């Protein structure tokens, strides 16, 4: 419901009107047809995803249905903005790759 959310796929706000949705979909389909790099991916709170013409058409179809739009809005409106992942914990347990081989227990 997040990575395949129609609003994220089309890159439009959750309060977009029907006209805005159709216009944005046509624009994206054209850009994808021409192979524009900007149109190849879309942003989600879980990181960028690959965008395809099939996904765009399915997203438009979903948003034409009031019930499906309602569910999509529920997620899109309340999803948080993406924040960079925290750095790795400094006190991670120290592994010793290759130790088994050194001790004669691995090929």
């Amino acid at each position: 419901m997040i990575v395949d959310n129609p609003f994220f796929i089309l890159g439009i706000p959750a309060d977009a009107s029907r006209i805005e949705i159709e216009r944005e979909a046509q624009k994206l389909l054209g850009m994808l047809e021409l192979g524009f790099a900007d149109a190849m991916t879309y942003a989600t709170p879980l990181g960028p995803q690959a965008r395809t013409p099939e996904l765009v058409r399915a997203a438009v179809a979903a948003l034409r249905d009031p019930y499906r739009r309602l569910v999509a809005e529920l997620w899109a409106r309340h999803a948080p903005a993406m924040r960079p992942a925290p750095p790795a914990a400094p006190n991670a347990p120290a592994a010793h790759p290759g130790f088994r081989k050194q001790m004669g227990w691995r090929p």
Partner: protein
Amino acid sequence: MYAIPYLLFSRLHQAAISARRRDRTWHYLLWSACAGVLAGLMLAFGASLLLLFWRVGLWPLALVVFAIMIAPVVAGTLTRHVFVPLGWLRFAFYGGLASKPGADGEAYALCCAAWAFARKPTAKGEKWLATHRDLRLPLGDAEVVVTGLIAAGRGDDATARALLRSSEMLVESHPAVRELVGEWLAVDAVERGAWAELYDDAMASRWPATPLTYFLEGIAARRVDAEKLPSALELQARWLLAPHRSKTRVLLTTSPSGYVARSTAPEPDSVDVVEPFAVETAPLPRAVAAHLALDVHAPTPSALATTVRAWDAALSDGATHAWLARRALELDAPLGAVDRALRELTTTVTDQLARKADAAHLGAPTSPGPVGDALARRLRHGRLDALETGFSRWAQRRHDGAVRSAIDEWREFVALHAAYSAAVRAGGMELRRLAFPHAFSTGSNMAAWLWNARNEYALSHAISKWLLAEALVVGDAEAIELGHRNTSLSVPTRLGNVEEQSSRTRD
């Protein structure tokens, strides 16, 4: 008569090694020193006799002296430092046999051959090992260890780990074989950085320690910041005693960048989740943020509990219902769209959380609400169904007459045991009580069949012992009674009949 001093040294040497296996204090170092001195004396005595016979021209006798007096002393070192690294299976086998590992030396010898295979695996070697293993009936710890080391040689570390650990359940115990198991697991733990696991093994004295294991256990105690640490001098002594000193020196000299948690127990429920998303105050955005945080971090019990509670709060919140109702009107959604959306949301969220909880072997958190209740139901039923399917398949095979080799029977039991343990660990006592009757009925029948029809006594005993332990936990009186009867039977093994005192007898 001339051999009497040698025999005396040899007996004392064996006694020192046996004493060392029972100890994990400074006595270990003392017994090791004694064993070393005695081995030196045996070597000196054997070499003197050999030289004497050689000088007087009795070279055939000199060869006999070498085979009887010198080879047993140097065989262990040769096996570890020459035959195993070169992958010479047969040499490793005879090296293990010559090192006089105690009763049923073939068991240890086969494990040494498997160790050489694990170092340099070949198809021919695997076939040789499998043939020799299958010839040894009934199944004992050595056959399981050989299979584990074959898996390690193939690169299947998870299977190797599970099989080697499973040997602890078998009543037949070759100390030299168990030492190899302990060393493999210790080295594997160090490679993975699983210091707490190694420390737990050391504290439980699960395996007799080789000098290398003993040294690594000392390092593990330092890494987990144990209450009782070996002194720097003792650690130096352990390092000196262990093989591969040039390679293990780095562990001795490097101070860890940070200590890892001492306990391997699950995290307490009060630990806060580190969310990569802004903490929201409204229930629904908070639930979505917690849900997404589970995708970013590995799920923990506390993170799952936070998410479930957040969803339950959001779905029972009046603001969520009001927002949905308003938007449904604005969008001209069909009648009943709000209830349907809430149901769909609950199902979707529960499905996703159940998948994550299953993958991470997490239990259902206590949270009365639509998501909490559905998740608890889903996890309990899913885990019970999976367990019952596994046990039924196991039982069905016996009825079908599909006889498998003893090691395959053991592998199936180990897999079911692991699945059962994971399920009850995640599902708690409630699931344990529900799962036990099926496990007990299937397990008891299989144990009886393996004992009576297959003469697999150690395997059968291990199943009965596990069932008894579980029966005691869930408090099933009938199963406890049967378990006590089964486990008190004398188990024929290659090391003699083993009769374990049941706790009831001890009481």
